[in-house]
């Protein structure tokens, strides 16, 4: 496509082209070959090392990531090409003093205006993804309070005062979340700043002393996600593990109602995970390649 559009502009009325032009033409053809599939076939856009995740917002973040990576590769690739091309094409061949060009106003205007437009587009898509991510529902069907401390986590479930899970470092405490329902998470810290980060959610937030943050997560895949603190919090920062277990909403609520304390609740949830996990395994395998290394 690109090649055909460009051809007549570069070489009006010429069938055969000479060395320099044919090189340019080959470059354009190469660029078209690389870019066209990227731009046209959005369903086969490479992951660029990231994954779509398991929440409704993580999918959008992933798409935004892909868009940014494509934009970044095009801009970066073009700039890299220009740097390397200029460096090789204009290597010194004689001691003659070249033309002393210092200002070409229209080029300078072009490379100020075009990045401004690109920035506008990137900002627009950022806002489109960000707004639902930071939005909070008024009456969440599920709630969880997360408290971080050196070097562990406490998970409690409002409305179920007996159900609390506490664990530190390699005890790897379990946080249970429903699938298919919005779960409102409140997050704070008892001592220093910690980082609540679950890779499969494509999301992180600080747990801070004196600040209670609230964010909503809507998980859509049953699974178990090994996680850990991301913000330096002292000696055992490397070992401040926790695990997120997501189970169908019905099992989640029945486990909450039937359990007498934290450990029985976690056992109930992990049982529900095994049962529904085997049913959903096929779906998980095909849609969530990134989960393959999690038990």
């Amino acid at each position: 496509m690109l090649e055909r559009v460009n051809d007549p502009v570069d070489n009006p009325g010429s069938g055969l082209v000479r060395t320099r032009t044919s090189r340019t033409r080959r470059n354009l053809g190469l660029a078209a070959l690389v870019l066209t599939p990227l731009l046209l076939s959005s369903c086969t856009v490479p992951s660029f090392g990231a994954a779509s995740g398991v929440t409704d917002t993580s999918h959008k973040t992933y798409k935004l990531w892909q868009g940014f990576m494509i934009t970044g590769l095009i801009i970066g690739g073009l700039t890299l090409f220009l740097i390397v091309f200029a460096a090789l094409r204009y290597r010194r061949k004689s001691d003659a003093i070249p033309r002393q060009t210092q200002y070409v106003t229209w080029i300078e205007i072009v490379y100020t205006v075009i990045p401004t437009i690109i920035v506008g587009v990137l900002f627009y898509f950022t806002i489109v993804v960000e707004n639902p991510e930071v939005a909070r529902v008024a009456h969440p069907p599920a709630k969880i309070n997360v408290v971080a401390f050196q070097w562990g986590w406490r998970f409690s479930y409002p409305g179920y005062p007996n159900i609390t899970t506490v664990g530190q470092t390699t005890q790897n405490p379990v946080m249970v979340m429903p699938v298919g329902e919005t779960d409102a998470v409140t997050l704070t810290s008892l001592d220093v700043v910690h980082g609540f980060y679950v890779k499969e959610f494509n999301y992180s937030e600080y747990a801070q002393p004196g600040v209670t943050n609230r964010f909503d997560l809507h998980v859509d895949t049953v699974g178990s996600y090994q996680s850990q603190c991301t913000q330096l919090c002292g000696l055992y920062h490397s070992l401040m593990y926790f695990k997120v277990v997501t189970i169908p909403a019905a099992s989640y609520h029945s486990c909450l109602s039937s359990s007498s304390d934290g450990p029985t609740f976690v056992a109930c949830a992990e049982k529900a995970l095994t049962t529904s996990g085997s049913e959903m395994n096929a779906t998980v395998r095909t849609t969530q390649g990134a989960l393959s290394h999690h038990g």
Partner: protein
Amino acid sequence: MVDVLEPQTAAHDDHGHDEHHGPSGIMNWLTSTDHKVIGLNYTVTSIIMLVIGGAFAMIIRAQLTTPNGTVVTLAQYNELFTMHGSVMIYLFAGPFAFGGLANYMVPIQIGAPDMAFPRLNALSYWLYLTGSITMLLGFTVAGGAADFGWVGYAPLSDALNAPGAGADLWIGALLLTGFSAIFTGVNLVATIFYLRAPGMTMFRMPIFTWNMLVTGILILLAFPVLTAGLVMLYADRHFGTHIYDAHHGGVPILWQNIFWFWGHPEVYILALPFFGMVTEIIPVFSRKPLFGYKGMVFATITIAALSTGVWAHHMFTTGTVLLPFFSFMTYLISIPTGIKFFNWIGSMWGGQIKFTSAMLFAIGFLITFLIGGITGIILASPPLDFFTHDTYFVVAHFHSVVMALVIGGMAGIYYWFPKITGRFLNERIGKTQFWFLFLGSTLFVMPGYLLGLKGMPRRMAIYTLHPEWQHLNVASSIGAWMIGFSTVLFVINFLKTMRSPKTAGPNPWDAHTLEWFTTSPPPHHNFYALPNIRSERPTWDYYHPDAPALTHDDHDPSHMPGAAKGATK
């Protein structure tokens, strides 16, 4: 062309009377107020700091080659990366640029005999040296050095969580080096505003000097805020205040705001001098004027202005900042940065590029910084920052940027070394060093991006649960050791060169700016005489009186209708 003798140089060549002006040797080093001596002190001290900080990095990378690294303990690891970051940021990158090369070059580039306040300049250096020693002394005290990261987030840095004297030494070191930076900032701004030679108007100043002016202003804006924050931190630790203490009505997040209000301008305080060095080097070795000189000045000023309004992009995941505002401001910085890139490319375009080591390093800077810049735009988007915050993606991003600065700094050293010493660094070793540094940097940062996307958090001494991260970590470590080896090559080159004869002459690169008009090394008050300053390139004008004039598209006759192509040649 180069064999044209400068009369003032020839007349004074064999006098050598500079040596008789003051004490020599160690006393000269201790008592001098000459900006060149102080600049060299700064440069040498900061390169020693680079080697020390680099050694910490080598140990860190050794620890991470296995999932359960046993090279150091968890506690030692926290000290190591804290001191690695602190030494590199506070004791190497800034002081090397604005205390070292800028101190040496700015007065000469504007035709001044010295800095505006020579004794304040000496005080700056001694505060810096004292601060550096203070910080490193942390390793000798009970409890070890500071271990809360180079950002020292409250309350991890309070008396309860960091009880040792190492933390106090860290705070003291930052106060000392902070004042050193402020005084240097005062000196740079005053020198550039008041000591320019006749004819050296603002828009004839070399870009390096322009960048140092803007850097100086940024220092004056940012560093006092950090100093205030540190005083409050110290008061919390020792005088019973509760400014950052959430349990007694204090606000821990205040530290992050204060720290990054300094910290983001600091990124540009570090970067602008290196942008300036590269901007000097590329046109000289392309035998062309800087493309878009005024646009470059505008871009630098814009970057500096915007950098004061983006600090909270380091705090997107705190849930306490206005995301769209800081995101948009951060995106805006990419526009002037892009202008710089295209001006650098435009300066090479149509030139006669000579691949000296300095030019190779400058191109290596462009490529490495490009990667850091692009990933910076990704991180400016809050959803993508939520996704990658505090992972190795961020580590890789800012190491792309700072490795670009190291490469750019090497370009500056190879470019100005003949001026400072009269000797050429060995080009063959220089080019070998370049490839180790450039390829090593790339190999070092690239696995980091992937590790971050796989979820590896930063500041991890061990990654027991994720042995699958090992291969990428090993690759990254090999890259880091290549960087380490390139530094060894540099030291060898330096020692070898210092025994070689002084063959450089005043203007070995056929350069543009005033420092290349005087002798190498320059005499006590820098110049025996000055050329006429009628453009941004007084030295070039002097050596090439009959060179083709600067062209501008509006005035270039070859672009006018009916003009024959190449008529101006």
